[in-house]
């Protein structure tokens, strides 16, 4: 009964989405206030029905209603409660319901906070959101109904893929989807703006907070996925350039570019058509991400639901949405009036360079991800493109990007003095040089790439500090006055500085762990000791323990350094009984400087175990850096000028007359 209510709610939501997608759009075209006004109640009702469907599905999972096929396939009565919740989106059908629920949620936010948006723009934005909803709801109902019944119902379910039964991955999809779907806001605003033929500073001011919100969630979502891969897959790595990872990384790169070009668009009225294009591309890549993960066009370690029939549907939808919006762009964008001329050396120029580098990086990732598909289509051999390609193409783009990011915030709008900016960065340059020299001196020239990477990170970090110090007139005013300036500084400026500092910390972590990881793979018997990176790892014992729905072989490692006890680590190898799958749970000891990482493998049959031990320097900096970046995004979002729904078109000062701000 509950499942049928959910199913029915989805059908009603589809009907409402069709209305929401058509009526306000026509109303906006004919300037009919009543037709436009239909958008808000339609959005509210749609949100209600999709929430109902989502709640019904969640109920079915929590009470383990195995007469629902989706529950039977992806749950089990002994599964811990957290994963009964997470199981809702741990599968293809349920994750799509989550997708449309988030879409409806964002639509609801526009309806709720969009009171002072021009009515025609609001109607068009909500209509486009509605049309996207139509596509996804139809996809769910036609190819991926989560409420299908089973008759007879099985006694118990097949359980969730054990790799997904993990706290990190429980929250990974919702965050990722908040990011993906968040870009639908920028997209809807872009398409609405193109239909209206007007992209102005107000438009950009509307797009920025949504993009920032989407970007922050996506950053956190990608990081959570990477963190999960790090401790769950048991190979000590945090990024594998796997197609599914790339699928979430490409919208991130495009979204980061959009975030920056929208600033130019808002402050200076320049780069309009480019910003619109980026908004379309960021969302298109989010859809492509869905397509790549769901269709089976690429194989990957974690493309967990693949079905070509769904692929055909998504591809058709993709062609309609992306092809349609890009065609609209092609027709309308040439007529966009652009203001704000600027010299190549200027804040705008710096942001444009940032955009060029980010988009190029995005294209190289796209090429690497799709190349195997295309080679196959062209009748070539089957290949897989691995980390060496991505490292070779990505690093040469990332290095200049870091350097530009250090300089950019010190450049003035319109026309800047590069020599002056570089002079102000003299301490950053000295610091970076010192880091490079020290690294080369300690580790020899073999690690020169790492030295450059760390140098660039130091440059960026010190550049951020320099910029903030200048704004606060630190050491030039009394500490008290500086503090007053710090409080008075716009939150956007703090947000930018935090985000950039986070990037520096993140890069430091990535470079250090990729270059100086040490690992030992060996066979150990209880009592054996292995020395690695200044630590001694002793395998004390291996026991069998029972979890709620698995049995595990759990090892105890005693870690010592110089005879001093550091910690005890308990890596596990779990066997989930329902699916018969094994998972590894690494035993990790984190300090601020490194992770000690242990994995217990198969017994060799004669009392020994295959073990892997890693010393991963500065890995915690990766997660710390990302947290700082996201904090920056959140701080910037609280800036009153980002206050969702306060465009104040009337009080807008002339472009360029605004005070300098981030």
């Amino acid at each position: 009964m509950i499942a049928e209510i959910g199913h029915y709610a989805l059908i009603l939501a589809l009907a409402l989405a069709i209305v929401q997608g058509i009526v306000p759009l026509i109303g906006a075209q004919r300037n009919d206030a009543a037709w436009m006004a239909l958008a808000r109640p339609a959005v509210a009702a749609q949100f209600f029905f999709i929430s109902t469907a989502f709640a019904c599905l969640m109920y079915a999972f929590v009470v383990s209603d195995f007469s629902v096929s989706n529950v039977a396939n992806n749950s089990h009565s002994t599964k811990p409660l957290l994963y009964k919740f997470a199981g809702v989106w741990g599968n293809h059908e349920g994750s799509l319901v989550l997708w449309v629920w988030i879409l409806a949620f964002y639509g609801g936010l526009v309806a709720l906070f969009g009171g002072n948006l021009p009515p025609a723009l609001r109607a068009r934005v909500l209509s486009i959101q509605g049309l996207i909803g139509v596509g996804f709801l139809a996809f769910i109902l036609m190819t991926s109904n989560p409420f299908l019944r089973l008759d007879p119902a099985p006694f118990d379910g097949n359980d969730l893929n054990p790799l997904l039964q993990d706290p990190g991955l429980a929250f990974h999809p919702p965050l990722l989807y908040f990011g993906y779907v968040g870009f639908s806001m920028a997209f809807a605003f872009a398409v609405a703006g193109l239909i209206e033929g007007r992209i102005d500073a107000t438009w950009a001011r509307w797009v920025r907070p949504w993009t920032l919100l989407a970007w922050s969630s996506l950053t956190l979502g990608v990081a959570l996925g990477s963190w999960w891969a790090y401790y769950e897959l048991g190979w000590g790595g945090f990024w594998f350039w796997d197609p599914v990872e790339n699928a979430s990384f490409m919208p991130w790169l495009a979204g980061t570019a959009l975030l920056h070009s929208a600033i130019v668009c808002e402050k200076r009225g320049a780069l309009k058509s480019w910003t619109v294009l980026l908004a379309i591309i960021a969302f298109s890549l989010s859809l492509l991400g869905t397509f790549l993960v769901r269709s089976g066009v690429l194989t990957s370690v974690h493309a967990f639901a693949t079905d070509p029939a769904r692929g055909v549907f998504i591809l058709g939808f993709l062609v309609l949405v992306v092809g349609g919006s890009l065609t609209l762009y092609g027709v309308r964008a040439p007529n966009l009036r652009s203001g704000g001329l600027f010299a190549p050396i200027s804040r705008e120029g710096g942001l444009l360079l940032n955009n060029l580098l980010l988009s190029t990086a995005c294209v190289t990732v796209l090429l690497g991800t799709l190349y195997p598909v295309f080679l196959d289509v062209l009748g070539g051999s089957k290949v897989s493109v691995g980390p060496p390609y991505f490292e070779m193409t990505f690093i040469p783009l990332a290095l200049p990007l870091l350097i530009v990011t250090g300089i950019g915030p010190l450049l003035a709008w319109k026309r800047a003095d590069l020599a002056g900016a570089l002079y102000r960065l003299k301490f950053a340059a000295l610091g970076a040089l010192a880091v490079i020299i020290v690294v080369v001196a300690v580790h020899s020239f073999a690690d020169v790439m790492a030295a450059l990477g760390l140098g660039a990170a130091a440059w960026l970090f010190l550049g951020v500090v320099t910029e903030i110090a200048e704004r606060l007139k630190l050491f030039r005013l009394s500490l008290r006055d500086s503090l007053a300036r710090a409080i008075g500084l716009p939150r956007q400026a703090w947000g930018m500085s935090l985000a950039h500092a986070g990037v520096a910390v993140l890069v430091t972590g990535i470079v250090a762990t990729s270059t100086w990881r040490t690992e030992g793979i060996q066979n150990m018997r209880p009592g054996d000791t292995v020395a690695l990176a200044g630590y001694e790892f002793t395998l004390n014992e291996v026991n069998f323990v029972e979890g709620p729905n698995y049995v595990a072989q759990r090892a105890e490692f005693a870690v010592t350094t110089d005879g001093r006890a550091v910690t005890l680590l308990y890596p596990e190898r779990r066997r989930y009984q329902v699916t018969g799958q094994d998972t590894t749970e690494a035993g990790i000891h984190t300090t601020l400087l490194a992770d000690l990482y242990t994995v217990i493998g198969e017994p060799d049959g004669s009392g020994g175990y295959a073990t892997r031990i890693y010393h991963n320097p500065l890995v915690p900096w990766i997660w710390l850096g990302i947290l700082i970046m996201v904090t920056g995004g959140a701080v910037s979002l609280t800036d009153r000028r980002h206050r969702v729904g306060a465009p104040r078109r009337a009080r807008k000062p002339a472009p360029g007359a605004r005070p300098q701000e981030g």
Partner: protein
Amino acid sequence: MSENGAESPPAPPTRTRRFKFLIPALVFLGLATGLGLGLSKDPGVVPSALIDKPVPEFALEPVRGTERGLASEDLRAGAASLVNVFASWCGPCRAEHPLLMKLAEDGTVALFGINYKDRPGDARTWLDQLGDPFERIGADLNGRVGIDWGVYGVPETFLIDATGRIRYKHVGVLTARDLEETILPLLESLRP
């Protein structure tokens, strides 16, 4: 940046200027066509050009420290066999290794190895630590034989029938499911 067409002061849009804005749509069209065609291909099954062809002619030295190398004749010895291409530097190989050990224990099928582009010492250590499931192993030090076999990544597993023809190729980690659902039934059907 003033040469950037989009940013110049409003000039009457010429035809070439207009066309520039359609480039993204055209690029996407190409992309979508490729993806559409790609959908009809299953990436899991790699249609080896060698399917149903005799195994390539080769003779490989044994891995240092083991006794028996691998040559084409060994694969025509009158019984079906599996040839597993592996390397000690390959993480996924380690993941499938226990399955190979079990297969060897059960004795269902003759298991041969091609040690692909590996350092002899490393291969030896690998076998010592994880066990050696193979009846014979050929050391393909420079990957020359791998090219003949169409190997593009390790691990790969080939199913060879009794007359030495390649009947099936599996790319990537072999799982218990692949074995039960595909390889063992295929082996069964090849039995006289």
